[in-house]
């Protein structure tokens, strides 16, 4: 997750907004429309990629390399379509909330603008 502050805003504000959004996603999950949008975008990106010879080769290579099954897309697609809002809550809680590395890039000597270890208790 990457965010850039406008002049006049410090990184802890952005950090809080990100934390709030992640917490909300972990607690409430996505809406049906959001879930459907994510599925639609992923499917559309896939069909765009396999228009070219190189895209098809990349896709076969990638599935073979990662799973040993060159044409593993149908399996992936089936899994993708089966994802529920509860699955999203679970993976957000597991992977996106909790210990993580934060890198702040601030003007020289303006350490007070940097994100802090924890803004929400």
């Amino acid at each position, binding site marked *: 997750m990457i965010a850039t502050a406008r002049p006049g805003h410090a990184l802890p504000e952005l950090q809080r907004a990100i934390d709030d959004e992640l917490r909300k996603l972990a607690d409430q999950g996505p809406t049906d429309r959001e879930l459907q949008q994510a599925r639609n975008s992923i499917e559309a990106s896939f069909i765009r990629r396999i228009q070219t010879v*190189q895209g098809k080769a990349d896709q076969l290579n990638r599935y073979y390399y990662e799973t040993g099954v060159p044409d593993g897309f149908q399996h992936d697609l089936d899994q993708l379509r089966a994802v529920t809002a509860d699955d999203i809550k679970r993976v957000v809680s597991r992977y996106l909330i909790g210990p993580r590395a934060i890198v702040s890039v601030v003007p020289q000597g303006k350490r007070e603008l940097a994100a802090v270890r924890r803004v929400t208790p």
Partner: protein
Amino acid sequence: MNTLLSMRHRLTAAAGLAIVCATMASAQVVTAPALGTTPTLVVPAVQQAQLPNGLRLMVVRNAEVPLVEARLIVDGGARARGVAPGLATFAASLLTEGAGNRTALQLSEAADFIGARLNSGAGWDNTSLTLSVPKRSVAEGFALLADVLLRPTFRSADVKRERDLRQAALLRAKDSPGQVASRVFYRNLFPAGHPYHVDLSGDSASTAALDSAAVRNYWNRAADPRHATLILTGDVSLAEARQWATSAFGGWTPPATPLVKAPVPVNPAASTTRIILVDKPDAAQSVIWIGAPGMRRDSPDYPAVTVMNTILGGSFSARLNDLLREQLGYTYGAGSGFSFAPVPGPFLARSDVRTNVTDSSLIVFFRELRKIGTESVTPVELDRARNYVVLGSLGDYETAGQIAGALSSSVLFGRPLSAITQDLNAISRVTAADVERVARTHIDPGHLTVVIVGDLARIRPGIEKLNLGPIEVQTY
């Protein structure tokens, strides 16, 4: 086929693949299949129709994947008569910032929801709207496209935001040596009154004058179905195209006072090679732009010029990049190209080089620009360049978007898509003598416009010693 500095960095992709393969521990050693005969490009058939309101339809069907690409091209653009600098691109960018009953955010959310991409843009010759959408969501996609074309809101709050963003971009451009070089180059190469004299995005004064009324007035005049073409490619038949177009754009009516074309002033090459310097104190690199007014797309020299430029600077292994980057290490890249448009664009050779080799780089540029027209290219170079263009073209018409792009070029230049085959055949027959002749005709080292942006205190003495032509310092 706009070849301006369009080097294909295929090497990078190939290297990435090699690393992946090398780490596949379980890979078996197999014998590579024998190469078959070289395939030739089969240019797809184009079907055409027209709606009663004048909107032309062009369809190329390729149903391999369930994707549809729609490109709506409205003639006119930034060089139409009476269009203020920067207005056409500004209006085009605002089309997707609010339309029908949706705000900018709602438009992009609606497109995202169906996995579609919706973009708008304008150039010197036209405005184009592009929709890429999965077949199952064509109806929703076309509804968005029609809103954006026919019912843009141009709310003053959106206009103000976009205007502020553009002013900020114009300010940033003054800090970017490449942008400064570009603007100074065009300003000097093309006289006042020529469309290319001022950048497509205008300047800060023209931007300050942009408001909701100006944008709406312009777009109402520009959006004329009698001067528009809807290109549809991908999983679409002519019957479907007609049906979708009729339901989305059947009610589109011509404006009362449409835009008209402006005459284009003739633009002779500089009477002598001129050097224009722009100071950028402490710059680590110098930006070098060398050019001339260019040539027409319909010139009989087009095939030979394409091969010539491929050898000179139009590919990674071309002379300019091979010398300045690979052999001398002066730069990360150098290239050249002819920009083709209905109004001839420039010939341009350029590079960003280390400050301390600015003069040495100019020596290489001028030597090569002269040599290509006075010494025969080698048979290897000639073969490589012809193959680069002809065989490379096989990958240029794979996707629905690429075919739609080729069709929009064919509309722009008034040439059928099948002319691509004629061009490629002509390119494969270009000789070394042709290359030498067209280089001499179209690149004259004695009449070039040279713009260099860099640390003048360090680079000017070396440039003066080269005696390339009169030197002047400009600011931007």
